[in-house]
């Protein structure tokens, strides 16, 4: 199984994400934002956290227009898997792969801490290794994680069971306590918490490993 991890200028979780994929058993290929195509045979694209293009204009806005973006859109359009974490969630939302937008945290502060999450839908390729309703703890580290969507869009996400993760105690003002949201075909997940920072007992937690194990398990079935 092949995972591609994209690096933008200002990405800072790209290596961690590559290590997390490798740790789970993926062959990992690193892709530069100026590349115009993904390597052949890529199953899942990881869009990492960080501060792509210095968060200029809006978080993720410039990265979403970079040369690799159209290849990522095509990959998603063909039913390929895409995992966007933190700034990666902002990037793929700006790309239009997910509805809504990520705004400044309601408390206006950058928040860097471990938070409790509830697996609101285990029926996804990214969360199937967890139990429905399972409580896990993952680190968050963001200034703009306040997920915002219109009432109709929120109702649709709920009706279609597309809220993969919710905060147990909302840290940033996100509508519906949303921490992670799925695309219509469930093959794109954007999430603000960092599972790649919780895949090794040596760094304190393995609660995030299930995300990568889920994707691998999904592909083994496919």
């Amino acid at each position, binding site marked *: 199984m092949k995972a591609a991890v994209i690096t933008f200028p200002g990405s800072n979780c790209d290596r961690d994400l590559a290590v997390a994929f490798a740790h789970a058993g993926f062959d990992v290929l690193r892709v530069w934002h100026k590349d115009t195509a993904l390597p052949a045979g890529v199953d899942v694209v990881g869009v990492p956290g960080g501060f792509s293009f210095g968060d200029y204009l809006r978080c993720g*806005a*410039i990265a979403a227009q970079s040369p690799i973006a159209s290849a990522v859109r095509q990959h998603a359009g063909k039913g390929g898997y895409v995992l966007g974490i933190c700034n990666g969630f902002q990037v793929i939302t700006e790309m239009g792969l997910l*509805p809504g*937008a990520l*705004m400044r945290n309601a*408390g206006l502060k950058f928040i860097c801490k471990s938070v409790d999450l509830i697996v609101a839908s285990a029926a996804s390729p990214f969360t199937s290794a967890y139990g429905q309703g399972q409580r896990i703890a993952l680190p968050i580290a963001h200034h703009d994680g306040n997920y*915002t*969507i219109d009432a109709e869009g929120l109702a649709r996400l709920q009706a279609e069971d597309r809220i993969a993760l919710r905060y147990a105690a909302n840290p940033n003002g996100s509508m519906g306590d949303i921490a992670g949201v799925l695309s219509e075909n469930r093959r794109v997940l954007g999430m603000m918490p960092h599972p790649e920072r919780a895949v090794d007992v040596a760094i304190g937690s393995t609660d995030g490993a299930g995300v990568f194990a889920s994707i691998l398990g999904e592909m083994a079935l496919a």
Partner: protein
Amino acid sequence: MKARVTVMLKAGVLDVQGEAVRHALGSLGFAGVNGVRQGKVIELDLAETDAAKARAAVTAMCDKLLANVVIESYQIEFV
């Protein structure tokens, strides 16, 4: 030709930064500020000299990059 684009959060989208500014003004003693909305102004220096073409081009720029139309609205003026 120069264009000035004003990008604001849409009405109904909570502007947490504007609210923080409103509170700060209140604590400085500026009474009666009922609301603050914060946005951004982007100035473009364009090679285009035809007004209609320039407006079409800047509109495309706004829709594609300068504004996130999910949460923001924009106004274009030529100066």
